[in-house]
């Protein structure tokens, strides 16, 4: 979340601003270990308590407990399908809280006051007015007030007819804003993807290795992360001999149809081998396909890329955004191009040596071309060299391997003496 008057004012341009604002505020703390599950669980638990308190007065203790459990289970399964976004749960919570405040105040119910509450809830919390109207209808069902039973839910569904014109969106989207999804099963694959990507992001390389190796068979994603760790240690040729490697990353293609995890992954890969053009492309793609077009990890990466390429003006733009966040402020200070931390400056300078200076235009992301261009620009790019030679070997292209080894190791007088290379050269 960006703490600036302009950014906060943006929330007020749409209904559900309270849940979106609160959601974004809480989501930033997902950065900390266990904070995400803790915040989400607390919100879901609050919904349960509110739901039980409301229902207890309407349908009695046992039935309300059962109904609460059922609705909680439903909510949890919806959360599984909701990319772990919290604003959806908050909208339900605001609706339930409104019921808990409204019903004790207006014990007999009044469709006029309830309609006003619906409008307020719609403006503050999106589809919370549907939650409120549902509970209100349930209450009126017990009181056998047909008029109240029908009017308030009708109002709840009519509000977005006007609202969607004001907020310039479709009726369906406005009715369900800030987002309502179908229930889904837990997605352990995505969780694992996030886990390994996050460990790599925090440079917990031992954890990355551990996670990749604990799988019976490495997935393409974990294989690529595992190899990136090895490449940084200069051990890629050693490890591909030891491990069954499903994917090096050199053959993975990304486009607008690729999952975000793959785009993030290739961003890390291109940054590692030193191709800043492709890394920037992947970073912008990942940002474009993120919720609200914002992706803090990619914003940091875009800053790094532009520091490497020497585009200080654009790097400074990203620094200025990150300086307005709670959790990335110190990172931004260290990466300010005009007052860069010495360790950061050293790292950036190291990366800058490998910039691709080939005056070519690419129409695709053919990694062989990328790797050879990088090596033509700087033959000391060991990561690019290992990826090129290892890809040749994995593809079984022995003659290509020999030609590449000759060009980049022998002709450049930079022998790369690795067991797997020597064995391949002797065949």
């Amino acid at each position: 979340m960006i703490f600036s008057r302009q950014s906060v004012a943006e929330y007020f341009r749409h209904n559900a601003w309270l849940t979106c604002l609160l959601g974004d505020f809480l989501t930033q703390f997902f950065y900390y270990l266990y904070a995400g599950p803790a915040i989400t669980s607390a919100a879901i638990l609050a919904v349960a308590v509110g739901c039980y308190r409301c229902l207890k007065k309407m349908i009695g203790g046992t039935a309300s407990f059962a109904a609460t459990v059922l609705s909680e289970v439903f909510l949890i399964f919806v959360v599984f399908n909701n990319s772990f976004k919290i604003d959806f749960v908050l909208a339900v919570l605001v609706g339930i809280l409104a019921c808990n405040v409204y019903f004790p105040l207006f014990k007999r119910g009044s469709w006029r006051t309830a309609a006003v509450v619906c409008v307020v809830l719609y403006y503050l919390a999106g589809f919370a007015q549907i939650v409120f109207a549902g509970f209100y209808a349930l209450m009126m069902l017990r009181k056998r007030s047909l008029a109240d039973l029908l009017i308030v839910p009708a109002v709840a569904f009519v509000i977005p007819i006007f609202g969607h014109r004001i907020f310039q969106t479709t009726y369906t989207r406005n009715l369900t804003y800030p987002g309502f999804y179908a229930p889904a099963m837990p997605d352990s694959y995505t969780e694992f993807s996030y886990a390994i990507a996050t460990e790599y992001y925090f440079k917990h390389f031992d954890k990355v290795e551990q996670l990749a190796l604990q799988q019976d068979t490495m997935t393409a994603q974990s294989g690529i992360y595992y190899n990136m760790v090895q490449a940084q240690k200069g051990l890629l040729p050693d490890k591909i001999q030891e491990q069954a490697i499903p994917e090096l990353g050199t053959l993975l293609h990304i486009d607008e149809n690729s999952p975000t995890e793959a785009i993030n992954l290739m961003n890390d890969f291109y940054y590692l081998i030193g191709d800043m053009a492709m890394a920037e492309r992947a970073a912008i793609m990942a940002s474009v396909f993120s919720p609200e077009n914002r992706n803090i990890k990619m914003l940091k990466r875009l800053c790094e890329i532009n520091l490497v390429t020497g585009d200080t003006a654009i790097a400074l733009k990203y620094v200025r955004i990150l300086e307005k966040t709670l959790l990335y402020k110190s990172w931004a200070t260290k990466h300010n191009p005009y007052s860069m931390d010495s360790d950061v400056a050293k790292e950036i300078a190291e990366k800058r040596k490998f910039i691709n200076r080939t005056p070519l235009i690419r129409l695709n992301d053919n990694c062989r071309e990328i790797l050879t261009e990088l090596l033509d620009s700087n033959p000391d790019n060991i990561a690019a060299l290992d990826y090129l030679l290892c890809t040749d070997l994995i593809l079984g292209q022995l003659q290509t391997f020999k030609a590449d080894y000759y060009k980049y190791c022998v002709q450049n007088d930079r022998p790369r003496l690795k067991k797997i290379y020597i064995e391949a050269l002797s065949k």
Partner: protein
Amino acid sequence: MKHITHIYILLIFIVLTACHKQPTNIKDIDALPSIFPDYIGVSIPPNIAPLNFLVRDSCLSTYVCASFNDLKITASSCDNQVCFDIDDWKKLVSAAVGNYIKITVFEEKKDGIFYQYNDFNIHVEKDSIDPYLTYRLIEPDYEVFSRIKIEQRCIENFDTRDICNHNITNNSCMNCHTFANNDPGTSMFYVRGANGGAILNRGGALRKLNIKKSGMASGSVYGHFSMDGRYFVFSTNVIIPGLHADPRNRMEVFDTKSDVYVADLENNKIISSPLLCDTLRAETFPYFSSDGKKIFYCSAPILKDNINNIRNVHYDLISIDFDNGVIGSHTDTIVEAINGDKPVSVCLPTVSPDGRYLIYTESNYGTFPIWHRETELRMINLQTGTTDSLINVNSNNSDTYHTFSSNSKWVVFASKRDDGLYGKPYFFHIDNDGNTTKPFALPQKYPDFYDNCLKSFNIPELSKGAVPFSTKDVEMLLKKESEGFD
């Protein structure tokens, strides 16, 4: 209870006055303030919204005084953001028409001293600018997009509204918006995707058109209305995006084929000419002259293996006659791309409504100037034939996608001058003698808007009023079938 009320009142007073300190302990600094956007020495129209700005130095508070003769307005804040009251601003600017507004900036630093910088001036021109600006907001990467929209902004204040957005198009792409003679009653934009088409607005009545006939390379891409709005000249382009291996140059976009056609919007007919559909040449960026008697466009030979030959692709600026639906039989070269030591490439010609000037962009090669840092604007005086290189307008980064105000006195263009990546609308003035002024960025309600914005302002176009339709109208129209063309 009474005491508590007093305490509350006192607290509210303290909060309200804390950020509105008059500078007392003042020290002069012999330098101009570092402000963003750069409004130092610019010329503005009398109907522009307040030029709110940021002071780039870190400071405890800022105090700014804008004055003309005895009329003075102030703006103060607890941070580095300077926002003028819009009513005060309007009064000041109205009084200063034809003269200079003096701006004095004070910054309170941590030592408690207010530092006063050298004053700077803003000139208020007599000529007004069209009050509405339409642009597309898109990430600065044309390969992919998500959640893009075409927005209209009243530049006399800070009101914006969407003309079309991702919600109603199912996240489809939408392209160039164009007006006939800056008239909001005649305009067109494209929505791509399954239910897409060219959305034609005539006085608020919308039509969805499929401006295509067999044999055309693609649907319409770049286009422009004739003055009366009956004809629409457009190009069809097979566009290939590429990526420079050297990250400093980022993207390159080129056409493997492009032709120019004219659509008769009254009879749904497409008019073509072999001169505009030469199989050996690529014709693009068509634009009607102000009297509708000529079509200006850019043309270059189609080179084999154009990906590797891109640096040899140079577009000429050409004109061809057009009379009441009939395309002329010969062409005139207005700017020859390969002429002299340094070949250039001409893109995006636009003609002022009064017919006096033609502005185009010039880059070293190719057909997508937005990604070329060297891209600059050039202005031809169509009466004398002289070309102005617009030294005080151009920057070190891409300056392109320009259009005129209806009175031909103001030009808006997209400039990447601030960071090289994110385009912003900039405006400059042309006086009766053809002299131009230092451009200024579109002012925003919150001066840190541009710092936080991760979208580019794309293809800014001025209009005399707001478009007479809503996103809901567009949403309904998209569900209908497109009208075809012969």
